[in-house]
């Protein structure tokens, strides 16, 4: 974890990792009997080749960016939040319930209200593992995994019974989805004729706020201090437990906001479940981690990074149409990129350590106070 906290933004490591993953992908494509150059060409065209493509890429990048900025803050406080999927779902649920409860508010009031509901929902779903870790010492990786399952099943329950579209019951089709939510909550389209909606701006603003929070506020400084050296931060009187909880809450809130934007920016303007989380979130809870890592855990670098990964996910569909290689390839490559980035970062850190080793010897006592990974 410590190694991650060293900034590698601006370095070549993520790019080399991405190129290596794409090279592996090319081999897979060749083995499956297709032409990788054509495939990747179509992928890039499908992601960035036209105004429509850029709009779709931005929309797809939005949840990655929101999840990613939350991840930046959590990881900097040394908390691993892999509960993004569940936090997105709870944010979506609470915002949906809100829109169903007060559908007639004017857009100028309703849109901020449902977004806030998403933030609160996700925030609560992040605060629970945060409190469990801070006050009971429960490993956040495990609790967030379990809370993902709980969130998904709650969604399945609500969409199959209490929140189901009355029309689905009338018709007897019983597709687990809500009715079309209030038009007043629709996120406005920014450029007529494309799918680019206000959610993209919300995500951009959120990442700038995260940057201001981390580098321009006292609380942000404390968060980073706790992550960097919890022993020293504790010694300096910084409330370690509260910081841990705050970081997970913030991270969850960003995921919850992503959930709300996913619902009200969707083309169906409903919340739909396919029984798992993948159907609704598109694995954004995990892919957002990839985007944040790729952006060196820096909220602003996560913007281009999310845009890139959003493009990969959108372009993968174009690739599928052109060379019949399923778009799932890109999910697999994202996984490889994570492995490569995490591996290469630590290699670089160890090289740096090796060079500093003579200097380190004299400061070995200081080094010992560094917290070890949990």
């Amino acid at each position: 974890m410590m190694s991650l906290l060293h900034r590698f933004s601006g370095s070549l490591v993520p790019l080399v990792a991405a190129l290596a993953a794409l090279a592996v992908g090319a081999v897979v494509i060749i083995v499956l009997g297709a032409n990788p150059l054509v495939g990747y060409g179509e992928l890039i065209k499908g992601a960035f080749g036209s105004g429509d493509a850029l709009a779709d890429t931005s929309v797809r990048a939005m949840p990655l960016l929101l999840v990613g900025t939350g991840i930046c803050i959590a990881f900097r406080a040394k908390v691993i939040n892999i509960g993004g999927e569940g936090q997105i779902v709870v944010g979506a649920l609470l915002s949906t319930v809100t829109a169903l409860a007060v559908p007639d508010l004017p857009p100028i009031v309703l849109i901020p209200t449902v977004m806030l509901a998403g933030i609160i929902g996700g925030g609560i779903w992040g605060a629970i593992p945060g409190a469990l870790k801070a006050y009971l010492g429960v490993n956040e990786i495990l609790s967030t995994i379990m809370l993902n399952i709980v969130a998904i099943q709650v969604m399945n329950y609500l969409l199959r019974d209490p929140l189901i579209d009355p029309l689905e019951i009338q018709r007897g089709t019983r597709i687990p989805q809500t009715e079309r939510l209030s038009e007043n909550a629709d996120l406005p389209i920014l450029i007529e004729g494309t799918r680019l909606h206000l959610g993209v701006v919300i995500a951009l603003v959120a990442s700038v706020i995260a940057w201001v929070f981390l580098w321009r506020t006292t609380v942000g400084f404390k968060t980073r201090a706790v992550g960097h050296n919890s022993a020293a931060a504790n010694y300096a009187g910084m409330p370690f437990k509260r910081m841990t909880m705050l970081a997970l809450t913030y991270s969850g809130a960003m995921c919850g906001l992503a959930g709300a934007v996913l619902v009200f920016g969707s083309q169906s303007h409903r919340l739909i479940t396919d029984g798992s989380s993948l159907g609704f979130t598109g694995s954004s809870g995990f892919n957002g981690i990839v985007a944040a890592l790729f952006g060196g855990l820096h909220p602003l670098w996560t913007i281009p990074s999310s845009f890139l990964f959003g493009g990969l996910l959108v372009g993968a569909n174009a690739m599928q149409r052109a060379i019949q290689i399923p778009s799932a390839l890109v999910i697999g490559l994202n996984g490889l990129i994570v492995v490569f980035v995490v591996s290469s970062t630590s290699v670089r850190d160890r090289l740096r350590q090796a060079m500093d080793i003579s200097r380190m010897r004299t400061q070995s006592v200081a080094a010992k106070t560094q917290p070890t990974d949990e």
Partner: protein
Amino acid sequence: MSDFFTLSVLVATFASGMRLATPYLLAALGETIGQRSGVLNLGVDGVMLLGAFFAYWTVLETDSRLLGVAVGLGVGLTMGIAYAIVTLVFKAEQGISGIGIYLFGLGISELLFLKQVGIPRGIPSFDDLKIPLLGDIPHIGNMFFNHSMLVYLAVLMVPVLTLVVNRTTLGLNIRAVGESPEAADSLGVSVFRTRAVAILVGNGLAGLAGAALTIELGTFQNNLTNGIGFIAVALVYFGAWRPVGVLAGSLLYGLITATVTQWKTLGIVTGATASLTTMAPAVLTVIALAIIARRAADQPAALTVPFSRDG
């Protein structure tokens, strides 16, 4: 509800619970060995998916279920070699590289399934093997001694791994490098080799768990595991890093799943309420984790801490 509390239904539900528990058990046992050596593998679900797909594909093409199981194991071992390189050579952060392995397995298994198979076709499951004498005991026989060979294999792994961990040199080494790699190293135990073995065992069992899942279900689909691998990781904590504890946790999951399915069949709960019942084990696990966390002494002290001599 009275339909449920008849002897034959209860016996059938228990037997089905044993079968459903098998993939959890195999994966969680593997993760236990890995964690006892100090290595966390969050990518179990991805390894399971790859093991499951390749086992499924093998059975589809060759009609040999045994070969399918062997291929599942082989895929697991291959992923084990990769994970050993990532964690032991590159000393990558384990929690996050596990997410990478998961995404890799999720994407590649779906890719290959769609490309090579496309439409799900059924494969034969293993026949039930009735154990002589024991299998004839009324009810008890059907509950415990009339299962497929994979169920027996998984349950048999519990005493075997308990013995290996507690009574062999390899087990002692695994525990030593998980608790204090520096001390083990100073006594001449190779931290690298011991952890590599534990990682191979862990991933091999995860691949096997995937094979067991797909052959038991007789089919494959995208994201077949639906998070079983992640639950398996939690079961290790739940079982306090002991194979017997892991067995108890796996059975709990299997039995609850079987009960919910049975209730749905009998019409005791509707499809919607079944979702709520399905999440019961997850809630239980969070509560259990909160209680267990207080006796964190059980956790291997060097879990997720990479080892290098110049520390």
